[in-house]
């Protein structure tokens, strides 16, 4: 199971990112656990400067803007 965290202060792009990740995971039949991180010090703690950011299994894989489907599929492979 992949542990995925989406970093963001609750803006529209963050919600879109979460929905997209869940959708791609469902299409691929991958079991994931998505967590929303809104706490500002925690977001900064990941070293991300632009939101939404995505953390997969403790590693930052994306920052700034909604990731593409292609990119998400790559994380879940």
């Amino acid at each position: 199971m992949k542990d995925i965290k989406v970093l963001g202060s609750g803006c529209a792009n963050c919600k879109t990112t979460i929905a997209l990740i869940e959708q791609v995971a469902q299409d691929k039949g991958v079991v994931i656990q998505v967590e929303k991180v809104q706490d500002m010090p925690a977001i900064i703690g990941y070293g991300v400067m632009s939101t939404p950011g995505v953390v997969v299994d403790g590693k930052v894989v994306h920052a700034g803007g909604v990731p593409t489907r292609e990119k998400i599929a790559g994380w879940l492979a």
Partner: protein
Amino acid sequence: MNTDTLPSPSDRVILWRWLVALAVLAPAWWWAYNHLTDGADWVVAAAGLTRQTALGEAVHFFVYDTPKVLLLLTGVVFVMGVVQTFFAPERTRALLAGKRAGVGNVLAALLGIVTPFCSCSAVPLFIGILSAGVPLGVTFSFLIAAPMVNEVALVMLLGLFGWKVAALYLVMGLTVAIVAGMVIGRLGMEQHMEDWVQAVAKGQGAATYDGDGAGWRQRLQAGADHVKEIVGKVWPYVVAGIALGAGIHGYVPEDFMASIMGRDAWWSVPVAVLLGVPMYTNAAGVIPIVQALLGKGAALGTVLAFMMSVIALSAPEMIILRKALKPRLIATFAGIVACGILLVGYVFNLVL
């Protein structure tokens, strides 16, 4: 779309498709932009109107300005989307690291124009820059320039008023950002950041994510995405703004605004700034209204002050910044920017 089984075309092929598409679209764009008057004349004539009537004049204004502004917006937003891929926040941070006040303020203000910025990432961006050891005042120059010298506003001014007004807006906006950042730096307000921010700002190098490597295919794609995101979001405001502008243009008598927004009314500049604070819209929506007001005798400085205030002093951004800054620093920030905008308003009213 299943990207696993389909072999995806190589980057090179996609890049070629992009170049062919651009080779077709760019001349088409240029042709359309140069035939706007013909199109508007044709629509007015086809509707059985003449420009001598108020209705005909309003319709002409609308069918001329709507495609003009949308074309400009699409072109510029695409180019900016591509340019921004060269200035990821991580890059900006690296460029600003180790810069002192003065040079740093100028560089920060310039980077503020080209770095992709969304008010919902203002706080992580702000702290990321601070954590690279960049002084508070320099960071503020960036934070002020980013929303204030808005690329959409700049291009719309260029398209609707000509290059002199656009250049003046650019220079004045940069000056406000640079000077305001220097003043905030001098005031030594580091202790007015929230405690956790102070802790992060002292511990060096919080930002660790380096961003993605980007080739030209990704850059062009980013331009297209930027158009989809920005133009897709603002076009209703643009059309509504132009419709309102068309109404003012056709029906409100000449010089109607001169008495309340003319250059003789000294109090009109501060009033314009105050009116702008609670308003939250984007440059693309404001500028058509601005143009119509100007046509009716409003002074350019007053109108520009209103526009800058709407864009740079927005209440929602202040609320987001409150997560990282204590009220006194936010108040200082808003106060200094407001003074800068007032100054811009008066200078424009004096020289033009």
